[in-house]
């Protein structure tokens, strides 16, 4: 894994605010079952941990969903769009191929001449974007907006047992700024390991349906990958699991997160979970969960938080963050 340690530089990089947005329609398990999903509401909950998820309306684009999250993050920092130097959007559910959804988001935000990048690293995409954003700040950008947005519901067949109940739509965004060395994002690592087994596949973003083959293998591989990725970063940073106030894993499936805790010997209450009411929102799941954890007041200044994800490809990433007062204060602002 390639690990970047901004805390070792003369300046640091901090997350100064988080914003989030969900699809407009909340679908509980009973509603999904009524739409043709082949399992009962109770069994959906038992198999996945999901009790409800949010789907966008047909007229809501991925860019529009991302815009709501970004606007909230900007409002919380009391920044105008003109103060953003760079936009990075992670999505594996783009509205169209050209122009990019990042370009459409750039237009909705009315950014000036800030470049808009779009990346695709499946469920690890937010951490890939965060890594790029951190590097941009270290290289001289003042403020970078990193967003992950997914409208996975457009890529689902509700009747498909493997995928129909797990996924939801959402977006999360963070604003990055410089801070004192040794604060904020202490380290971030990403990696890609090509796998010849196409276990999670989507051909064309808006025409095809997501396929998940060999789900049990995906489950075991993802858990092992998350544990190894997290351990690699923690070892590099010389931080023990017991020093972490919270771990925010990619919200893939409640069973997967439970197994991750078991493998890492991490108390379950240290692993933040929003899967029950968000579902799996792919690359948006980590910033959505971070937003919720911060707003719930479950984190304090000085707390160490580990973010970790594994996605199709295979892609994987982890970030170690020290929560500070700037972030906590911004999250108390109405947005």
């Amino acid at each position, binding site marked *: 894994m390639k690990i970047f340690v901004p805390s070792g530089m003369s300046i640091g990089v901090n997350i100064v605010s988080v914003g989030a947005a969900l699809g407009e329609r909340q679908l509980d398990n009973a509603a999904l079952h009524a739409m043709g999903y082949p399992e009962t509401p109770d069994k959906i909950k038992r198999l996945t941990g999901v009790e409800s998820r949010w789907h966008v309306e047909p007229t809501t684009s991925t860019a529009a969903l991302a815009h709501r999250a970004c606007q909230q993050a900007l409002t919380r920092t009391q920044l105008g769009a003109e103060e953003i130097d760079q936009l990075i959007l992670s999505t594996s559910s783009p509205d169209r191929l050209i122009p990019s959804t990042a370009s459409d988001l750039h237009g909705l935000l009315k950014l000036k001449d800030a470049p808009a990048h779009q990346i695709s690293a499946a469920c690890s995409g937010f951490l890939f974007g965060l890594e790029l954003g951190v590097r941009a700040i270290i290289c001289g950008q003042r403020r970078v907006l990193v967003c992950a947005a997914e409208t996975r519901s457009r890529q689902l067949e509700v009747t498909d*047992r493997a995928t129909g109940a797990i996924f939801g739509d959402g977006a999360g965004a963070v604003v990055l700024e410089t801070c004192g060395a040794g604060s904020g994002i202490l380290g971030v690592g990403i990696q890609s390991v090509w796998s010849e087994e196409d276990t999670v596949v989507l051909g064309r973003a808006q025409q095809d349906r997501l396929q998940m083959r060999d*789900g*049990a293998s*995906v*489950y075991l591989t993802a858990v092992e990958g998350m544990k190894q990725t997290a351990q690699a970063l923690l070892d590099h940073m010389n931080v023990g699991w017991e020093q972490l106030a919270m771990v925010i894993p990619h919200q893939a499936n409640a069973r997967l997160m439970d197994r991750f805790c078991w493998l890492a010997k991490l108390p379950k209450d240290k692993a933040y979970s929003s899967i029950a009411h968000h579902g799996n929102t792919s690359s948006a799941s980590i910033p959505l969960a971070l937003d919720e954890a911060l707003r719930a007041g479950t984190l304090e200044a000085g707390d160490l938080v580990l973010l970790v994800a594994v996605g199709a490809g295979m892609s994987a990433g982890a970030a170690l963050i020290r929560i500070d007062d700037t972030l906590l204060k911004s999250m108390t602002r109405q947005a």
Partner: protein
Amino acid sequence: MQDTLEHTLRQIMISLLGELPNEQGSLGLDSFTLIELIEAIERELDMEVKAHELTPERFDSFESIAAFLATKRSQ
């Protein structure tokens, strides 16, 4: 030891599938059931199943699963 392992596996299978499986017949487990089976094995038999160990041959029948677990436990 082997009898205990097979007995526990049989109890797990009954709880998951609702009936005693034909020992040599293919179980045809779907992914969700396979995940529940792995979790039950790990919980009840205190054994970790690794991703690379999850092959169709090993998890095809009651007999193949029992043989895999017995080999794993003896190592």
